[in-house]
């Protein structure tokens, strides 16, 4: 594979393609050396439209054959070359080196006259590093994928031929099927950074692939399992990092939110993590008050209906008690200085008839509960909005008009 990067550059840009100098600053680790990880800079020269992976392979070819990076297709299909480039989890083959260089130099240099900053390449986060840019996908990614039972659980009786499902029901899970198991979302996951046991974006997106599949018969069991696990669907901190990292538009966080809708709203699973309680409390408070009553939310999330004489669960009581020091500090500092902010339920409603309109919206939305998946529908308005004149016209007949 020697000289391959040059050949590829020539293929894509011809001999006239502009060659630019770039510095790659690579985080390296040699497991057999007994030393910790270290940084090494490589000077590479290639067309700006070629990829960071091309740059790494050139460095490997020309400077240090021991530089390790996993790769195969080089076309964002196989999902092998997940890395962090300038701190962003992505595929090395999908990132143009010219763009990565620009990104690294977006902020002006502090003294204004330094050298351009290098393109920083690191192994993926949230998983062990085997060598240089090669991470151990088995111990983290694949173990978590297996955690969600990633196969179809059917009713046991094999059909005579195939199982027939309406195509539109499969469209719903197309987005998760697009996953190429590259691990970029796992690398980017900010919940997993704080809680390594979090099942994580890739595995939960995979879980939705089966929860949303009409042939699967254990939907409720799957949701129950993922809702009750303290590191399951309610451990996602809703940070969108996986959405930005995914090279295939799977939007794992969107799938986690769909799992929550299915668990909480459809299956009414009351999880021990307060996930459903929190959501239900939030939704109810806005229906009654229009804006958020934070004290009531706190109370209702941990101990719903405590005012209505229900006894909170021990786990909820722990959470409620845990929040008391914070409340006392709030009182002392004046943050919660006025009574209405401390006593749950005193928060004012919206002025005038505004609250009635909010209530009306609730009725309207609960009746339909439509969902729009932009992955499937796209973002363009195909049908132009009719103007008012057209709207006031009676039903248009397809026949010729009278005066024609």
């Amino acid at each position, binding site marked *: 594979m020697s000289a391959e990067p040059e050949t590829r550059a020539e293929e894509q840009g011809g001999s006239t393609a502009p060659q630019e100098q770039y510095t790659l600053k690579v985080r390296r680790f040699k497991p057999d050396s007994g030393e910790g990880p270290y940084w090494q800079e490589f000077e590479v020269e290639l067309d700006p439209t070629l990829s960071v992976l091309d740059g790494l392979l050139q460095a490997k070819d020309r400077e240090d054959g021991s530089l390790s990076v996993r790769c195969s297709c080089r076309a964002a299909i196989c999902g092998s070359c997940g890395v962090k480039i300038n701190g962003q989890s992505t595929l090395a083959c999908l990132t143009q080196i010219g763009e990565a260089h620009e990104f690294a130099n977006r902020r002006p240099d502090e003294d204004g006259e330094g050298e351009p900053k290098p393109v920083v390449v690191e192994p993926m986060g949230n998983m062990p590093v085997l060598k240089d840019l090669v991470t151990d996908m088995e111990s983290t990614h694949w173990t978590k994928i297996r955690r969600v039972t990633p196969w179809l659980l059917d009713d046991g009786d094999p059909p005579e031929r195939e199982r027939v499902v309406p195509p539109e029901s499969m469209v719903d899970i197309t987005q998760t099927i697009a996953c190429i198991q590259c691990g970029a979302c796992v690398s980017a996951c900010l919940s997993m950074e704080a809680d390594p046991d979090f099942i994580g974006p890739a595995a939960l997106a995979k879980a939705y692939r089966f929860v949303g599949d009409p042939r699967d018969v254990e939907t409720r069991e799957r949701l129950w399992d993922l809702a009750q696990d303290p590191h399951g669907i309610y451990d996602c*901190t809703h940070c969108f990092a996986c959405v930005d990292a995914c090279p295939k538009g799977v939007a794992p966080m969107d799938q986690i939110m769909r799992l929550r809708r299915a668990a909480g709203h459809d299956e009414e699973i009351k999880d021990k993590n307060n996930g459903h309680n929190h959501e*239900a409390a*939030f939704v109810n408070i*806005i229906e009654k008050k229009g804006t*958020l009553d934070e004290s009531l939310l706190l109370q209702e999330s941990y101990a719903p209906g405590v005012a209505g004489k229900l006894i909170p669960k021990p786990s909820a009581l722990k959470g409620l008690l845990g929040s008391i020091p914070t409340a006392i500090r709030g009182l002392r500092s004046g943050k919660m200085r006025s009574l209405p902010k401390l006593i749950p339920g005193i928060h004012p409603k919206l002025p005038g008839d505004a609250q009635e309109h909010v209530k009306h919206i609730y009725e309207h939305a609960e009746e339909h509960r439509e969902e729009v998946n932009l992955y499937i529908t796209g973002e363009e308005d195909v049908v132009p909005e009719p103007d008012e004149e057209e709207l006031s016209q009676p039903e248009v007949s397809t026949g010729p008009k009278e005066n024609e």
Partner: protein
Amino acid sequence: MKLAYWPGCVSRGFTTELHGSMALVADRIGIELVTLDRANCCGAGVIAEHNQELADTLNARTFALAQKTGLGMMNICSTCQGAQSECQQRLDADSQYRAHINEALADEGIEYVKDNDDWENKNFLWVLVEDYGLDQLKAKVTRPLSGLRVGPFYGCYVIRPKHRLGYEEHPERDLYLEQVIETLGGEVVEYDGARKCCGFPVITMNRDTSLRQAGTHIADALDQGADCLVTPCPLCHLNLDMQQPEAAKVVNRDLGLAVLHLPQLVGLALGFEPKQLGMGRHIASTEWVGERLAGVPA
């Protein structure tokens, strides 16, 4: 400049100092704010977890109320920005869906219109950089924040996901806090947590995960020599400031770092005193920030 103003829930609940300082700053720099007092909660992504159509309709109502004023809309909460942008993206993507949502608004005599006179909903941070302008802001600075080392903390919703938040037109939206800090004369502290999650969304579900995130970022900023953090998100403020003593227990080290709301940082540079900006109401002491600036005459 005149804008329809959505203050959000938390700025009128647990962080009134944000609402108060925003009013002072807007007045001082000449932005007239028309408060949308009939508007409702954005749902913070939580209502969308329950029923996406409900969240979309609630926010369509807020947009419609803002459009009725004939003014652009400003929010002061990263979470509002993110939740509202998400709903707006779905509303704008499908005319039939939009018409369906508008049915629910008809009895109030309002309607959300796509591309209505280039109507936009922008966080104060975006308004400050894109519409007000950093040059004009610089001209209003009477007390440069000289020597004040400020760590930016964006809040996820105002910077991610990139495909939704207007990066095509405004590619530097995830650099604005740094630009504002420098415009005000302060020094930017680079640290790991600037664009990470404060952990607030899971505080009632997984307290340890939540507080570990907040504590780690505060510790990182302290290690890089920050005098304070600044954030455009009051929910981040709750986890970074109100929960800071609890976060300290989880990460097992002393913290103690002032966390300012964006209008407070701007207000200091405009010459307001910390007390006027409600900085005494924070949990993590802001006294150090006041001391650092005491030498600089307002």
